[in-house]
């Protein structure tokens, strides 16, 4: 029982980790808390459902959902980042919140507010290992999230674009002096963040087979928590944070009330922000990217 819940927690945590990576990318590079990411997560999940529902083959539906979400993220970039540089520092943040609201209510207008159920694509493929049930999509999900985060950190470390991104993260003024074309790279950050949020949304949809327009909020809160626990701006911290939050959630819901969990989780977050703002795993200075 406990072991099974641990496994479920890891699966949930891998979704949180991807959302946290999306958040941490834009904080690490742009110092921008992008609240539209939970909305992008929802768009990906809803689009997966809608495409499959419309009869599109599931691999194509997944690709379609990823592409749509990344494109939407670029629209968000237009309106939150590009136009608003130099305004009151929290104006982009507030605009991104408006995008979350917009996405949710457009989704309701489009698809209705009820819970939508995806068909079971992988029925009967569950593995039974030593008495534990492990679903194939769960396993694939975990593998995909670890692989994609690994890929991201390779991208950031090895490619010249990654080096430019890290220069911006450390000091955007210096980056300008060094001739890094910030305007060209910012959309890349948004596209990557959108892609991670979308991957998380697709995995969530396939694993839990339920989507609805407000599905992003709870996951977004958990993603933010995972990011703080792991240390803002750190990709590997996001994985660790996601797993910690996912496992804690699954384990604690069974034993204490869900509301007490909220008090504990947010109390813990507050404590981390006060005493160790760099997160439990990373050792990087506040506000700076450590990708």
């Amino acid at each position, binding site marked *: 029982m406990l072991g099974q819940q641990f496994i479920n927690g890891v699966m949930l945590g891998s979704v949180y980790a991807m959302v946290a990576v999306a958040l941490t990318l834009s904080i690490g590079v742009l110092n921008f*808390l992008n609240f539209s990411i939970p909305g992008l997560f929802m768009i990906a999940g809803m689009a997966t459902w809608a495409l499959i529902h419309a009869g599109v083959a599931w691999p194509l539906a997944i690709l379609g959902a990823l592409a749509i979400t990344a494109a939407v993220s670029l629209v968000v970039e237009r309106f939150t980042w590009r*136009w*608003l540089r*130099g305004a*009151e520092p*929290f104006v982009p943040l507030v605009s991104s919140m408006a995008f979350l609201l917009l996405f949710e209510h457009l989704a309701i207008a489009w698809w209705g507010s009820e819970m939508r159920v995806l068909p079971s694509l992988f029925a009967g493929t569950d593995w039974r290992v030593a008495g534990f049930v492990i679903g194939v999509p769960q396993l694939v999900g975990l593998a995909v999230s670890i692989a994609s985060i690994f890929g991201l950190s390779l991208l950031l470390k090895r490619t010249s674009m990654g080096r430019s991104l890290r220069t911006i993260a450390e000091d955007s003024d210096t980056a300008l002096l060094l001739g890094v074309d910030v305007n060209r790279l910012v959309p890349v950050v948004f596209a990557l963040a959108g892609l991670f949020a979308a991957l998380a949304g697709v995995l969530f949809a396939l694993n839990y087979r339920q989507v609805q327009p407000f599905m992003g909020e709870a996951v977004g809160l958990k993603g933010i928590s995972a990011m703080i626990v792991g240390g803002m701006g750190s990709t590997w911290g996001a994985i660790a944070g996601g797993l910690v939050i996912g496992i804690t959630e699954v384990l604690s819901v069974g034993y204490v009330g869900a509301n007490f969990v909220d*008090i504990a989780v*947010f*109390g813990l977050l507050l404590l981390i922000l*006060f005493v160790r703002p760099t997160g439990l795993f990373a050792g990087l200075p506040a506000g700076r990217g450590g990708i």
Partner: protein
Amino acid sequence: MSGYLEGILVLLAVNVVFAYGAFLPVAAGQLNLGLAGFAAIGAYASAYLSNTYAIDPILAILLGGIAAGAVALIVAVPVLRTRGIYLALATFAVGQIVQAALLNLEVVGGAAGYPVTAFIRLPTIAAFAAGVVVLVALLFATRFGIAVTAVHDDERVADLMGLNTRAFQVAAFTLGSVIAGIGGGLYAHHFSFIEAQYFNIGLSITIVLYVLLGGTQTVLGPLLGAAVFTLLPELLRGSANWRYVHFAAAVIILMALRPQGLLTAAQIRRLLGLDRAALSRERAA
């Protein structure tokens, strides 16, 4: 007056009060994303006082505001040590904790919500809202207004000029929470029923949006923002869902076109002819 109209005007007045609660910290350069939590403290504390001790609701609402301010003062000192995104997230966490705590507090109904027996009508609420606007406007006509703006504009220089920047930030945060608490009390005593779910992060965000849309540089900005964005959706009619869509789209477009908000201090000075007088005198010289 029809019940519908009274309901809208009450909501307008309550939103104006909330908006000033968010405005004070924003004017000092801080984003309070936990404002709904302080509104909830004011709502529940005042409702508990008027329900249990049969206190006059007006007194209960004021005491509720003080309770919210007291909690704010306690959390302000550690929370305001953080900056920027960390501050936004810390206030956000505080709001979530308050909400979760109220959901578990059985004396005030827990998750089932809390009925409020005492009832106040539009005139009382409107008087409160007018009082808040006037008091904040007066406050910003004192040296406090200059000091808070100075802290907002350039904290380092303000410090070198001898301003106790932390004290001003704590004061703005606490006073804003008192006002939010009063707004919560007003809401509770008109709608006769409160539940913790109402005071969620969405409420905090909406209130902050009112302020940023109206303009953060002048005391009239929050009034305009709250008024426009409470009344406009009513005029547009349509389903609640489409109202949200319009509201969100309006926020995005407005922020893109006018990131400083609808009203700015410079604009008001221009309207009053102050800048023009300066310019013409300059040309004459």
